């Protein structure tokens, strides 16, 4: 009897222990952590190089800083490629998380530290951190991340774009971000890329060919018809024919050794919060203020009415205010020049104009402090550089569409190339947001999670979403199976 009891106890113990082991670790039917289903397909990620501009570099919050670089879309891709034969991915890391550049110990003007949200109410402010990254401290490569902020299409093949001496010429012929890590002073970005004999690449270039014109409020020149980029100013709009020649030349060089790659097209400015955040009718007024403002513009309106202009332009230029939200008064150099009559080329903005993000800090303030008649956007018109007008935006869109046609044609001509439609994805982000499963990013400035505080570049989370979407493209074009990243685990904006 005792033996039997003992036996029973053993059986019970074994049954219980088996139950525990089974219970300890429940397993999903398709565990997301299972690597065996991943594959590179027909792609070879052993030497991956990303060539491009700030969007490739991981630029965010107005600068390059290490956290942004570590979360650049190519760095995220490389981290996922590692599971399917991807090699090391080296980046020209900045010295700190502050961003900003020094040249031989002195702050380089125009290259400030990063923006953070600060104050009450929260507003973008330069971080209190001090830049310590010195351009003269040249890094030893090669570097897989060949993203250089500010680079336009024709800069990629430009010899000397990374030459320290070129920073001091007027105009400068070098880019401080490339100076930091160029393989040799006179190497071009393409040369430094080809030296690495990439087996796989991403190319995202051409953004600055339109964006530098757009962010300057269209103060540059539309170079349509001028195919010689050497004659362009910094804020000019690149000619589509020039772009096409440069672009296909770069792709031919990159694919010469049989490398496969993803070409990324160019988002429209209408998807970017830098252009869409400040409303055209940003001026609130009560009835009394509106009446006073109307009185102040009565002489101007009378002058316009009597200047012999076509009725449409008279209507366009007549300035009126009413109780409620009122359209900003802006300069528009495309209007008929009436300066001879003492009448400025001004009108009120419409929903088709894009008021640039930086002007939000001056709208409503007094141009001449203490003089309420000089309020920016009312008594004092916003200047040309504050607004991308409807006509200027149309030029940007036309150029961008032409560039995107080139990119699509080049991609379609070679089966080794995939096309990632960034323009469509950013349009989706702007119109409805992107739900990544554990959250949503939108283009709402500062709080939407998609765009960093410079209003032009994504947050780390935005770059993670981009990387996931590029992986979709790589899977469908090259038969790969890749693991995605969780955008929710990446940062958005930082608050001080």
């Amino acid at each position, binding site marked *: 009897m005792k033996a039997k*009891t003992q036996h*029973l106890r053993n059986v*019970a113990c074994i*049954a*219980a222990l088996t*139950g*525990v082991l*089974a*219970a*300890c*670790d*429940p*397993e*999903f*039917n*398709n*565990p*997301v*952590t299972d690597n065996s289903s991943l594959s590179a397909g027909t792609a070879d990620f052993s030497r991956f190089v990303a060539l491009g501009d700030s969007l490739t570099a991981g630029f965010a919050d107005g600068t390059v800083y290490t*956290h942004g670089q570590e979360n650049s879309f190519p760095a995220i891709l490389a981290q996922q490629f590692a599971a399917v034969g991807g090699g090391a991915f080296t980046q020209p890391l900045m010295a700190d998380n502050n961003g900003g550049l020094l040249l031989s110990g002195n702050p380089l003007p125009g290259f400030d530290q990063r923006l*953070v*949200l*600060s*104050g*009450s109410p*929260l507003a973008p402010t330069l*971080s209190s951190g001090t830049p310590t990254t010195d351009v003269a401290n040249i890094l030893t490569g090669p570097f897989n991340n060949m993203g250089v902020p500010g680079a336009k299409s024709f800069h990629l093949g430009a010899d000397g774009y990374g030459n320290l001496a070129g920073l001091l010429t007027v105009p400068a012929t070098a880019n401080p971000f490339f100076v930091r890590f160029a393989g040799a002073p006179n190497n071009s970005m393409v040369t430094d890329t080809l030296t690495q004999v990439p087996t796989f690449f991403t190319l995202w270039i051409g953004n600055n060919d339109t964006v530098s014109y757009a962010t300057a409020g269209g103060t540059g020149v539309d170079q349509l018809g001028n195919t010689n980029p050497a004659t362009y100013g910094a804020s000019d709009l690149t000619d589509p024919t020039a772009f096409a020649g440069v672009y296909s030349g770069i792709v031919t060089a990159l694919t010469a050794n049989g490398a496969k790659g993803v070409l990324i097209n160019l988002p429209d400015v209408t998807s970017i919060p830098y252009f869409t955040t400040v409303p055209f009718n940003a001026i609130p007024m009560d009835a009394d203020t509106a009446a006073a403002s109307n009185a102040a513009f009565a002489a101007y309106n009378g002058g316009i009415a009597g200047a012999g202009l076509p009725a449409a332009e008279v209507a366009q230029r007549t300035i009126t205010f009413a109780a409620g939200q009122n359209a900003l008064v802006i300069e528009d150099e495309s209007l008929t020049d009436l300066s001879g009559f003492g009448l400025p080329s001004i009108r009120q903005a419409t929903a088709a104009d894009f008021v640039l993000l930086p002007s939000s800090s001056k709208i409503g303030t007094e141009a001449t402090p203490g003089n309420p008649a000089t309020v920016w956007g009312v008594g004092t018109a916003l200047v040309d550089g504050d607004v991308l007008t409807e006509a200027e935006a149309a030029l940007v869109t036309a150029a961008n569409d032409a560039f995107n046609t080139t990119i699509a044609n080049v991609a379609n001509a070679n089966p080794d190339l995939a096309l990632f439609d960034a323009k469509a994805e950013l349009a989706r982000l702007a119109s409805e*947001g992107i*739900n*990544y*499963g*554990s*959250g*949503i990013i*939108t283009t*709402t400035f500062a*709080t*939407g*999670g998609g765009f960093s505080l410079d209003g032009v570049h994504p947050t780390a*989370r935005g770059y993670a979403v981009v990387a*996931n979407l590029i992986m979709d493209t790589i899977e469908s074009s090259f038969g790969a199976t890749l*693991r*995605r*990243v*969780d*955008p*929710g*685990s990446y*940062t*958005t*904006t*930082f*608050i*001080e």
Partner: protein
Amino acid sequence: MNKVLVVTTLFCASTLVHAGGYRVSLQGQRAQGMGHTGVALTDSAESIFFNPGSTVLLDDDKEFIGGLNLLSATAKYQNVNTGASAETDSGIATPLNLYYNSKVSDSLSWGLGIYTPYGSSVKWPTDWAGSHLVNEIELASVFIQPTLGYRVSDTVSLGFGPTLVVGGVEFNRNLSTSLVDENGNRANVTLEASEVTSYGYNIGLLATATDRLNVGINYRSKVDLEARGESATFQNVPASLQGTFSNTTFDADLVLPAELTVGLAYELTDKMTFAFDVNRTYWSDYEELRIDFANAVPTSVNPRNYQDANTVRLGLSYERDPKWTLRGGYYIDKTPVRDGYFAPETPRPDSTGFTFGASYQRSPKLALDFSFLYLRFLETDNSYDFYVENNTTTPFEGTYLSNAYNFGFGLKYTY
């Protein structure tokens, strides 16, 4: 009264550290072995919980029975679209129960029960994918129930007990999906409420329909735990926002829903008893989790919209010999959580439970009880669709897989 407070404080302390599942069906070792049935059983003083109507029918004049559980629950999350995955830290929880019953006469009995039917311990990795909904939660409640049993007739008996409930909760979540300080540390809030007291009751009826068949019905009332002026503390809040997110107090209500049980027990043979219970838990009283902060921090409203849910339980006991009784059971527990309301603080889809138990009658007065439970939750793809951030509804989706197992030990002493 002081002693009662000390006891409850001790219970709270132990269950705060270790508890499992919002409704934890571990209220008796003997019931546990039979699939947690018991509304129509007259086996032990566990009836104080399962059906006070049975207490007057117990065999022994004075009986103490108590049990200790070692419960381990694990939940996993993954999202195939984002590659995110996480697993809860499954510590060992130790829900306790103690019952004492004393018969004054053949028609009257009194007793006292202390048990912990509601609790939860879910600890996800800090800053995991769903950290804006919950990082971790510890919920505990202790019910103290003095009880009277009364035999109305040869076939019908009744029982009633008011319950004093003492509960506590500790809850931490991140303030949003993205709020970080300059160094990237995620801002979060911890809510702590302790020794929140409330009242309820437990009432039951047992009918001995035939020599072999008992039918029971039991109702345990809803208990509203109303936390008032409890502590809310904020961590990693950026300096610019510390004016708004300053440490404060909060008010919140938590409902411990009512439960109706009907069931029967049938003696198949002199040695074998079959039990069948159906619980209906009135979860629809849990509409939302609303946290009102005393300062300017916006009120946090989290819709739950639970639905009433049934649990069907089967149990069998077999008196193998005068010393050993063996038990087995099975149950199907339907989730109260509707699709789209699946919040990771309670990762509980439909589940099935398998239980085993045994009692060893060591002496005429002392018996030792053992039980084992394996609770298997179905793998579920679900989401919580009611989190709003920056005026944008931000769903949290994924696949969940959970399980739990429990070892129970107890003893019964009669005199």
